[in-house]
């Protein structure tokens, strides 16, 4: 960052298109969504305003006012009260939605009173005509005494004008308050407040008192004087109430002169769609139908590319084996790295299809209707409608989902949502479910059109969601945490999905899965190969002892080689580890090789398939079983039957549905709850539940 760069903070109500504008200004591809709460942390990017002038743009979480009610909103207040020359913004860019200008201007009026140079960007103006809205722009500029620009961030309209306005605003560097609360409420009281510090504006001091949020730069003496103002709490509440009334009076006066809505010109498609999507019966039926279509598609559309990827990796492994000189590195490549990486890449089609559907639902504005629809159910279980966003985001990854709980203002509801979100079926579980379903559920249609495998997958997602809300209910009844609760959700307009946003969203999430998981799986595959290809004294004597017994059993050359490979694996370091834990997992139907995959997947669930692929590659030397699926299908148990039979497959899926097999999630829960207590409760509680449920599943089914 150069000294001359202008620091611009992007602020606005939730779902006004701040992140879309941020992406247009910076050329970055941060996630955008047509629902509130996408941005829960601040993000930075650089924008070239002119040939000689750059700006550092900070995208802040959406907030209805600078009186925060949740953790993400408090980030905005903290940023605005900073007096650090390196961090405090030079210009504030307030983004407002053209359709909800009155409510959006409340936040604008507060920011204007902080006396920081401000530009107002009125977004989504491409909707104005359809909504029958007209704005007298020059009069609005005059009344608000600020730069006002009409933009459409989605269509890249007005971006050049925004950049020019930021430069003009920064050069002028003058800002005057809009409402001047002191004169209208109690001049003497506010005069005394202003006398406390010349370094802060009156409204900044007022916010410190009302929000109990003191910047680091304030002196001890000033803070003590400000705290004295907090003693009369009833007066504070009364003045805060009056402040809001005065602000709305001022906004109404301005909008009456400058903003006209002609209802006769407006088309009300939104109202009609809302009636269907939020209907107390049809709303749920439609949501269930959409979920059914998604999970059917995951299996139907992904099977061809998945088979292609699986076969390609098998060919790469064969090619490498036959073209490289024999040796340890060749073994590492063909038995460790290639099967391990194949275990990640194969799931790209399914993950991309899931993210594609979720991105389309978010983009169209349907997701907010789901939030509204689910609020009634969520409340019964101790959460609120906003908990649906983390639970749905959790289908990608629990980490951003847990961070998205910052929008929930009640601490108890937020804590419950954090604790139950890992039950939601994340993308890391999808590979495990997909491979096990393919092994144990026949690929047939019910009623001629419903894919049975897709239905089982949908049931597993439903199981994850049901577990989350049942766990929430238990926590709601048992947790002794007092907190107030309310629910406000923005209902965005319906939009045709922007293919660009959908494309970037799918690419970004798939990339995050492949590279995030891929690096760990690659490293683990290498270590696993080492542990499976080396061992103690018994490992070194395997060949000799097998050859001795083979002579008595009249085995052919292929059978002898297979037996040597199998015995070597059993006596390797990893074999010894697996055998040690086998007694504990035997009641669940698992052998020691599955046990190894359970241990390695403690770090991250998606490692499970890659681990099995590596173990079976080290062991198998059969040219007919080259793909991961074939290798797993050909594994036999002690009785000579298929190892991955129906009871074992179901038991494993139930285990992964409940177990907290993700270290990164534990770390984020610790960070969000600021304690090790909650992640440890989560870890042991979920592990216990997983063990008991998979034990019961196996014992009942076998």
């Amino acid at each position, binding site marked *: 960052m150069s000294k001359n760069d202008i620091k611009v903070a992007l602020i606005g109500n939730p779902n006004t298109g701040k992140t879309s504008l941020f992406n247009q200004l910076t050329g970055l591809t941060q996630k955008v969504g047509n629902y509130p709460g996408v941005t829960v942390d601040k993000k930075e990017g650089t924008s070239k305003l002119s040939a000689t002038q750059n700006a550092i743009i900070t995208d802040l979480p959406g907030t209805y006012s600078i009186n925060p009610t949740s953790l993400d909103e408090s980030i905005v207040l903290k940023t605005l009260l900073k007096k650090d020359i390196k961090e405090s913004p030079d210009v504030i860019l307030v983004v407002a939605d053209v359709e909800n200008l009155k409510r959006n201007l409340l936040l604008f009026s507060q920011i204007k009173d902080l006396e920081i140079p401000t530009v107002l960007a009125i977004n989504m103006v491409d909707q104005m005509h359809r909504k029958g809205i007209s704005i007298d722009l020059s009069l609005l500029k005059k009344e608000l005494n600020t730069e006002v620009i009409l933009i459409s961030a989605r269509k890249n309209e007005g971006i050049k004008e925004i950049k020019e306005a930021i430069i003009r605003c920064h050069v002028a560097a003058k800002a005057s308050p809009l409402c001047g609360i002191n004169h209208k409420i109690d001049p003497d009281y506010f005069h005394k407040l202003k006398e406390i510090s010349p370094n802060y504006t009156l409204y900044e001091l007022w916010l410190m008192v009302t929000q109990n949020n003191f910047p680091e730069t304030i002196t001890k003496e000033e803070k003590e004087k400000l705290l004295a103002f907090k003693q009369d709490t009833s007066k504070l509440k009364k003045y805060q109430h009056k402040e809001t009334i005065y602000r709305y009076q001022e906004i109404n006066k301005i909008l009456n002169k400058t903003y006209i809505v002609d209802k006769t010109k407006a088309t009300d498609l939104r109202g009609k769609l809302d009636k269907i999507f939020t209907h107390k019966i049809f709303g749920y039926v439609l949501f269930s139908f959409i979920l059914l279509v998604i999970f059917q598609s995951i299996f139907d559309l992904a099977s061809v590319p998945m088979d292609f990827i699986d076969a390609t990796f098998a060919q790469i492994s064969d090619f490498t084996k036959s073209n490289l000189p024999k040796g340890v590195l060749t073994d*590492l490549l063909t038995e460790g790295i290639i099967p391990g990486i194949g275990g990640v890449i194969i799931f790209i089609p399914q993950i991309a299809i899931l993210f594609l559907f979720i991105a389309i639902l978010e983009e169209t504005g349907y997701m907010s209707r789901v939030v509204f629809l689910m609020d009634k159910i969520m409340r019964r279980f101790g959460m609120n409608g906003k908990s649906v966003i983390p639970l749905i985001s959790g289908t990608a990854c629990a980490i951003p989902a847990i961070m998205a709980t910052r929008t929930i203002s009640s601490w108890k509801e937020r804590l419950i949502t954090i604790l139950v979100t890992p039950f939601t079926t994340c993308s890391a579980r999808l590979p495990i479910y997909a491979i096990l379903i393919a092994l144990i559920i026949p690929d047939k249609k019910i009623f001629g059109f419903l894919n049975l495998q897709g239905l089982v997958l949908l049931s597993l997602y439903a199981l994850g969601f049901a577990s989350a809300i049942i766990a929430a209910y238990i926590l709601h009844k048992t947790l002794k945490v007092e907190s107030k609760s309310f629910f406000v959700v923005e209902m965005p307009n319906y939009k045709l999905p922007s293919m660009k946003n959908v494309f970037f969203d799918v690419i970004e*999430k798939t990339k*995050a899965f492949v590279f*995030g998981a891929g690096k760990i799986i690659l490293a683990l595959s*290498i*270590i696993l190969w080492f542990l499976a290809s080396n061992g103690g004294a018994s490992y070194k004597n395997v060949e000799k002892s097998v050859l001795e017994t083979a002579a008595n059993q009249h085995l052919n050359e292929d059978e002898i080689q297979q037996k040597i490979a199998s015995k070597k694996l059993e006596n390797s370091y990893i074999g010894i580890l697996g055998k040690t834990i086998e007694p504990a997992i035997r009641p669940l139907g698992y052998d020691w090789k599955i046990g190894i995959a359970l241990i390695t997947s403690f770090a991250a669930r998606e490692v499970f398939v890659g681990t099995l692929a590596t173990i079976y590659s080290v062991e198998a030397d059969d040219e007919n079983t080259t793909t991961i699926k074939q290798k797993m299908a050909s594994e036999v148990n002690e009785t000579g039957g298929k190892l991955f039979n129906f009871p074992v497959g179901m038991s494993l899926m139930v285990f992964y549905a409940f177990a907290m097999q993700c270290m990164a999630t534990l770390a984020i829960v610790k960070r969000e709850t600021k304690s090790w207590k909650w992640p440890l409760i989560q870890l042991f509680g979920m592990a216990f539940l997983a063990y008991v449920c998979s034990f019961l599943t196996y014992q009942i089914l076998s």
Partner: protein
Amino acid sequence: MQEIIAYILVVLAIVFLLKKFVFPSKKDKGCSTECGCH
């Protein structure tokens, strides 16, 4: 030669996993909403 490269890769893999899970850097902890921390 093959052995040397293979064992260097094993050491690098161990170092990577230790850095990722046992001694994570501050940057790893501060992931944003799209961190892809798997």
